[in-house]
Every structure is written in C-alpha cells, then in structure tokens.
C-alpha cells in the first residue's frame, strides 16, 4: 500500500531507537514516507545492549543484528552506510554527508546517539586506548585479547564491568580502575557494591577503587597507566568506560536548541517543527537517557507523531540489570539516605543475598536487590505507580509471594501481577500483552512469544518472567524450569551444551566433559554420540571425529540387523541407475551369497544379511562399479528422491531428476542432527512425495517451491512452504542454507520438523528466505564443512582404515584354526 504523495523522511543515525521507531511507523502508516537513513557506522542496525555478550563470546555479531540488509530493501528504505552527515541546511531542508550524498526532507529525525567520554589525560590518544561503544570497539578489544596480557578498564559502571567480564572471559588479566570509593555507585548502595565487588574478584577481576588516572603510559602504544598516587599498572589495553555525552554537535551547528542534548518537547520535536530528535542525543524535560527502555518509549511516541497522532512522552523511570553471567543484580530509583526516608533491609550472608528498599511517605522510591532479584519487577511496579505500601509494610521485603500472610509458591508472584505490570523493560511489554498473545495466537514456545510481542527479545534478562507467564497461561503443557538434561551425566540441556561448546571454544569430548563438569568420567551412550555430532558440526576443520563415540552403524558404515549381520545400500544418485550398476550389484549378490535384495523407500537397493567380516570385500566390488556409500545408516544426508520430470513426463515442469541429483551430489556426506531425507517432484502431482520429506521441492512453471519440516514416520505431517524461488541455483542455495541452520541449531536426534516447531517457522523464513546475508553465510559454512565431510567411507575402509573393526582379534579352540 503506497500513499499517493509520500513525504520524504530522513533519519540521521541507525541505532536501536530509530530502528524501533521505523518498525512502529511502518506498522502505523505504511507508505506514508519515503525513508532515507544515513548511518555513520558501515553496517546495518544491531542490538547495542548485546555487545557485552559478543565481547564475552556468548553471542556472535550475526545473532544481534536487528535488521539485515533485506529488511531495508523489503521496505523500500534507502540506507547509506558509512555516511556521516556533516551538515543540515534548515532553509533548503536538506542534509549532506561527508561522502557527498545530499538528501532533502519534509521531516528530519536526528538520532545521532552519544559519544563515549575519553578522559583527556596524557597518552589518551595512544594505540590501544579504546572506548566501549560500538562493534568496532568490540573488535579492537577482541583483537587485543588474542595476544593476551592485562587489560585495564577505567570506570566501574555498568559498561565498564561488562567489558571487564568479557575481556576476562576472552582470557585476559583484567584490572578495573574506579574513581569513587565503591563500584556502580549510581545504581548500587555500598553494601550491594561490596557483594558485587567480591563476586567479581572471585571471577579473577581485580578492582581498584578511589583511583584517579594520571596518565596513560607508552611510546607508540599502550604499556600501562599511572595513577595519581604514583602506582603504575602495566597493561596492553586500556578501555575507557567513564560515561557518555549526547552527540548534539550537528544539531547545534544547525542552530537548534541544545543544552546537554538536543532539546525536545513531549512530542520529540526540536525547536524546528520539521525536525525531531530521538535516542541518547535528545534531552527531554532536562533528562538525557542512556538505557534502552526510555528510548523505545519515546520511539513509539515519535512514530505516532509522524503518523499524524498526538502521543506524548512523559519521561521514564528506569531500572538496571547487570549482564554478567551468574550475577543477579537489580536496581531502580533513588536510594540515597535523606530526610524523611526510611529503609527496609534484608541480608542473608550465607546465600549472598542483600535487599534494600528505600521508602518515603509509605511509597517505594528506590530498590537494590543482589543475589535474588525475582521480585525486582514487582517492586519496580509499586514504585512506578507510587502504590501506598503501608498495609504490607511488615512483609514487603520478603517479596510478593509473602503478601497476604501465607507463603505462596513462587509462581503466584507472577500470577498476582496486574495486567499492566511491565515484564520486559527494554521493549515496554506488559503482562496483559504477553498473556493475550499466548492465548490469542496459540503460542507455545518462548521464541514464538518473542516473535509476536518482542518480550525478552532484547537483553533477555526477563526471560525467566516470560517463561513463568507462559507456564501460568499454558498450564502443564509448558514447564520452563525443567530443562531436560541431555542424559544422567549432566544437568545441562542440549541447547546449553551447544551454546557453551561454541562460547568456550571446546574442541574435544574430554574438554566438554571437563569444562561443563560432567558427572561421569567418560559419558554414556546417550551423550557421547550427541557431543561428537556437535563438535563435528561446529569445528569441521579442527575436531578429530571420535569413532568410539559413534553408534555401530556409523562406525562400520552399514546397518546392523537383528541377527548381527549388516545391510549395505550403495548411493544411487536421485534414484537413477543403469545396466552396468545393476549387473555389478547382481554379481556381488551372487559372490557373497547375499540372502535378501530389497528396493528401499528411498529409491535404491538394499543388500541384507552380510557378515561383518565380508563388508570391506563387498564394498571393494561395489566400488569398482563406481558406487559409494549411500549412508543409509547415517544421521546425515540419506536420499534425494526424484520423479522423471520434464525429460520424460508430459506434466513435468522442470528437470526434477537433474536437480535432485545435483542436490545429492552437493550434500552427500554431511552429518546432521538426525537423518535427512529429501525429494524433488517435477510438478504438483508430486510423484516423488516431496511434501512429507524433511526438505522437498515442488517444481512449478514459474520456478521451485521449497518445502520443509514434513514427516512420514512416527509422526505424519505435511511440509511447510519455505517459499518460491526462480532458478535451480537459488533452490540449491536455500536448501543448503536451511540444512546448515538446522545443523547448527537442532538437538541431536531431533528431526527437522520438531526443530522447526520449536524455533518457529517464521524465524526460519526470516533467516533463510528474507535475509540474504544470513542465508549466504549459512551456505558458505556448509560448503566449508563439506571439504572435510565428502570422503567416501567405503573406499577408505577398502584401503585398510579401521581394519580392526572387521576382523576377530583371535580365533581359539578350533581343532585346526584356519589361517
């Protein structure tokens, strides 16, 4: 839908606030604007608050991208990357960037964000001094971490401590320098700061308080710092995390009203009625915000204003959570001591818990929770609404579950929250919105809730609350607390293990078991094959496949039968064969007296009842005729069924046989979480039965319809449509990328339809169909791993590999043991 005369909207800056604003605007007034974005950073829009997990290695950059290139293209938005705007001409209503692009506007949004504050001490310009603001900073830090040594972080605020934790996780020694006597003094009182400092010390992070930096030492690059008191700390990296200031210079030059930030009214309008400011660069009622929740709230207001509405922003009350794994910390409001203020404190030294509420006139005005933060959102809600707490004052500190006299189960706390209680602070999602989405849209997974409501989709710290809400709404059908462990050897579930293998760079089964604290010395028959697969998938070039952790079928490359004999299935590309191949098979059957020959459901031939000792000789004969293993035993690519297609069939629309063979030749040898069966049908009559396969293709006149997530085994399920593509090349790229996404994310033995149900079809379509960059990245990773996977296991064993598998160790007790 396009309005007749779209107005021109220009946005300077491409951070989280304008990204969110655009989402609202496109929803509220699609087609009302022709949008042009100037981004000084050379990339798309990403989740800046997740930079800390990227630094610590717990997430990749790809995982924190909010809008990929395709999103901009799909919405007809022009995005100039690496284009820093240097001039706003308010008279001509144009902006111009340093690289010479000029755009005219009807409405202009300035969202230039903030600049990190660099302390101007001597040496601050040396190489190795970085701020902590964007992805380039993270890249600098990661590069520095590679060479090890000590990192010095100046500033023990939220960002500084997250940087310190991330660098420690990357293997550096870390010292944090802080000017004030206690850390995070803006968010924490001294008692909570003490507990936090202790917890960080235990994680190997050294903290020096009351320390003023005098100079950065070094000649061409950083060698350390000197403090005012003369102490010298050596280090190869200095991270300055001492604060930010609004980037308002451009607005000031354009003559707009600027104090600390660009002054805006309740409609986010600047002193020029055609120009708005949004995000960290804006100043509203004397406040500049640096947290995401207020920015998102004002983004919604601005979108409404640009759509012709009259929404107003009234400022935000903010709260803080620290993203350091294993440390629970919540703070909100004002907690300094003062006239007319009272406090309620709860301490439990053994459990490391500290809670403090600051009250004024029977209302909560501040809260600090350390160690146990589940009541944070309840306290925050009471605070925002200025609820009179005098009736529950005696039990208030124990939390919501204890109100009303009797202790309730923890779930009751969430149940008792009012519908308008905020659950996700980042995205401003209240309880009612989540519960109505769960029931209204029939959501059963966390990812589904994230996709529909955005709750817990940003920093993720409210995930627990969202899961509790799901459990409440869905009853027994959802149980978030119980992550099913992989097996009795560990408490961790498959997803955690997969994530930690990547995050900690674990590259062998013993390393996984040691680092993830396995409870058995060498695992069991459940976890070992799973771990072996995860490692093969994640480190294709580095991991040495552990055959003793594979099931017998994958170890001897044949299918064990009930009597201990084996069956052998040679690959028959796309189900096509010829006289020479059939003759070779017939000869093998005669020579080895194979008792049963059977055509399989996957369009090939199964030879059953072969003794294990005979396998290499059978393979040698089959190999001479050009056969390789059909991998009918593998948790990997099995078959690609085809019909005869346009070569023969009077209804065929495309060369389905040729495409099937091409796919099979491209993908054979790849290991997958569970078996993977494909099919290509040449027309919608679907003779290859592609619509009940793991991945299927239905050829049509206009191209190739790609299907996935079908099943015809324990469960019967028709496929879902991924989308229609025009060419064979595109079909191959989509299928390969989808397979790689499944390989990287699914749990061992989880078929593609179960995985797809768990993570959501929309998410798969978004990554594979809509996001071309993601798709190509998946494709490239698959291609990379194939170099190591496409080795015919049969010919290897014919040449002598794993001889011990096929021969008895000794023969004893026979009269004349045949040699």
């Amino acid at each position, binding site marked *: 839908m396009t309005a007749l005369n779209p107005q021109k909207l220009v946005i300077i800056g491409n951070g989280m606030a304008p990204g969110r604003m655009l989402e609202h605007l496109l929803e509220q007034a699609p087609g009302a604007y022709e949008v042009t974005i100037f981004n000084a950073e050379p990339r798309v829009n990403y989740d800046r608050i997740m930079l800390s997990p990227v630094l610590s290695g717990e997430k990749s950059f790809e995982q924190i991208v909010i809008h990929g290139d395709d999103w901009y293209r799909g919405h007809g938005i022009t995005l100039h990357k690496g284009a820093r705007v240097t001039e706003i001409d308010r008279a001509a209503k144009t902006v111009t960037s340093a690289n010479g692009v000029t755009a005219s506007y009807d409405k202009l949004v300035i969202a230039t964000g903030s600049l990190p504050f660099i302390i101007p001490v001597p040496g601050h310009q040396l190489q190795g001094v970085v701020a902590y603001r964007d992805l380039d900073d993270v890249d600098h830090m990661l590069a520095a971490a590679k060479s090890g040594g000590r990192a010095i972080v100046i500033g023990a605020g939220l960002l500084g401590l997250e940087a310190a934790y991330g660098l420690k996780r990357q293997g550096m020694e870390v010292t944090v320098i802080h000017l004030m006597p206690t850390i995070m003094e803006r968010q924490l009182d001294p008692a909570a700061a003490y507990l936090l400092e202790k917890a960080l010390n235990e994680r190997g992070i050294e903290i020096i308080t009351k320390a003023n930096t005098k100079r950065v030492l070094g000649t061409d690059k950083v060698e350390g710092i000197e403090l005012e008191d003369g102490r010298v700390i050596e280090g190869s990296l200095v991270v300055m995390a001492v604060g930010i200031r609004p980037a308002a210079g451009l607005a000031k030059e354009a003559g707009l009203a600027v104090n600390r930030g660009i002054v805006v009214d309740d409609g986010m309008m600047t002193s020029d009625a055609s120009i708005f400011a949004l995000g960290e660069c804006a100043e509203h009622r004397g406040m500049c915000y640096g947290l995401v929740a207020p920015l998102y709230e004002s983004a919604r207001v601005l979108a409404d204003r640009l759509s012709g509405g009259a929404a107003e922003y009234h400022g935000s009350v903010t709260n803080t959570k620290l993203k350091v794994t294993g440390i629970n910390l919540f703070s909100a409001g004002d907690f300094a001591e003062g006239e007319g203020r009272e406090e309620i404190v709860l301490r439990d030294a053994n459990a490391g818990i500290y809670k403090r509420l600051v009250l004024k006139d029977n209302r909560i005005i501040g809260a600090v929770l350390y160690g146990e933060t589940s009541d944070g959102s309840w306290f925050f809600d009471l605070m925002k609404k200025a609820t009179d707490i005098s009736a529950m004052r005696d039990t208030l500190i124990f939390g919501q579950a204890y109100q009303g006299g009797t202790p309730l189960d923890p779930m009751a706390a969430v149940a008792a929250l009012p519908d308008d209680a905020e659950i996700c602070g980042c995205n401003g999602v209240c309880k009612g919105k989540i519960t109505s989405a769960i029931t209204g849209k029939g959501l059963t997974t966390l990812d589904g809730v994230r996709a529909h409501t955005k709750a817990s989709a940003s920093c993720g710290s409210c995930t627990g609350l969202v899961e509790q809400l799901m459990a409440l709404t869905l009853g027994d059908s959802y149980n978030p607390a119980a992550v099913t462990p992989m097996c009795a050897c560990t408490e961790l579930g498959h997803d955690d293990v997969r994530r930690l293998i990547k995050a900690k760079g674990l590259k062998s089964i013993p390393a996984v078991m040691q680092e993830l604290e396995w409870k058995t010395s060498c695992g*069991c028959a459940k976890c070992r094959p799973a771990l072996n697969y995860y490692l093969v998938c994640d480190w294709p070039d580095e991991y040495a496949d552990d055959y003793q952790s594979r099931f017998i079928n994958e170890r001897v490359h044949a299918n064990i039968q009930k009597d201990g004999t084996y069956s052998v299935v040679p690959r028959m590309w796309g189900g096509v064969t010829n006289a020479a191949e059939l003759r070779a098979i017939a000869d093998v059957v005669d020579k080895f007296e194979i008792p049963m020959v059977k055509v399989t459901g996957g369009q090939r031939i199964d030879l059953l009842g072969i003794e294990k000792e005979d396998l290499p000789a059978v393979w040698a004969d089959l190999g001479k005729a050009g056969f390789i293993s059909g991998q009918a035993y593998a948790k990997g690519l099995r078959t690609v069924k085809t019909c005869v297609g346009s070569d023969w069939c009077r209804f065929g629309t495309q060369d389905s046989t040729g495409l099937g063979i091409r796919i099979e030749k491209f993908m054979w040898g790849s290991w997958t979480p569970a078996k993977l069966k494909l099919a290509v049908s040449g027309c919608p009559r679907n003779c290859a039965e592609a619509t009940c396969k793991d991945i299927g293709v239905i050829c049509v006149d206009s191209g190739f319809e790609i299907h996935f997530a079908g099943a015809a085994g324990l469960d019967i399920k028709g496929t879902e449509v991924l989308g229609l593509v025009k060419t064979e090349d595109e079909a191959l790229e989509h299928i390969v990328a989808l397979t790689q996404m499944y390989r990287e994310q699914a749990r061992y033995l989880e078929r593609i339809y179960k995985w797809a149900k768990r993570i959501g079809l929309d998410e798969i379509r978004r990554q594979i169909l809509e996001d071309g960059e993601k798709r190509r990245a998946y494709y490239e990773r698959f291609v990379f791993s194939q170099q190591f996977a496409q080795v015919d296991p049969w010919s290897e064993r014919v040449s002598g590999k794993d001889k011990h598998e096929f021969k008895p160790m000794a023969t004893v007790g026979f009269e004349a043991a045949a040699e």
Partner: protein
Amino acid sequence: MSWITIGEIDDIPQRGARCIKTPAGKIAVFRTADNAVYAIENRCPHKNGPLSEGIVHGAAVTCPLHNWVISLETGEALGADEGGVRTFPVRNENGLLSIALAEPALAAAE
C-alpha cells in the same frame, strides 16, 4: 582352565572392543578409557545383540540393538533391566593379553 594368549592391548581401541571366536560362540574383549581389559560373552541377555559393537563408557557397554547397559565387571545388566552374561578372566602382562577359558568353552558346541 587354561590361559590362552589372544593378542596385544593395542589391538583394541580405547573405549572399544574386539571379538574372539571360540567353538562355543564369540567372546567380546573390551578396553576401557583407563586401559582396563574385560572379557564377556558377546551376546546381550535381552535379544542376543553383539555387545562388542556397543558404545563403551566407564566399565560398561550399551548394546547396539536396544540400549541395554551391561556391566563389564559383573556381566550383569545395569538399571531396570534384568539378566546377565558370562564373564571371563583376562590377564594383561606388559600389554600381552590372555584369557582363561574352562574346557567346556573350548569344546565344540553341541
């Protein structure tokens, strides 16, 4: 009862097994992750699955057919399953393995 040399410990992969053929059936010889060696009958008490083909973990093996777990030390099924297989003494002298077989095991099966 007599000790019969069957081969060297390095003939068996760690966390793996090999078979010995005898007239009374196959015997599976296991080598664990810490190089302990055990010999048991190569027939799962459940449905005769070849235990030598199973995944070896600790001093136990999981049958490749239906996932019964058999103790290599006692030959008994572990967990909820009931049943057992015969075990045979194994001797490891500087890597040279021998197994003790009673005469009936050496005699041809009837």
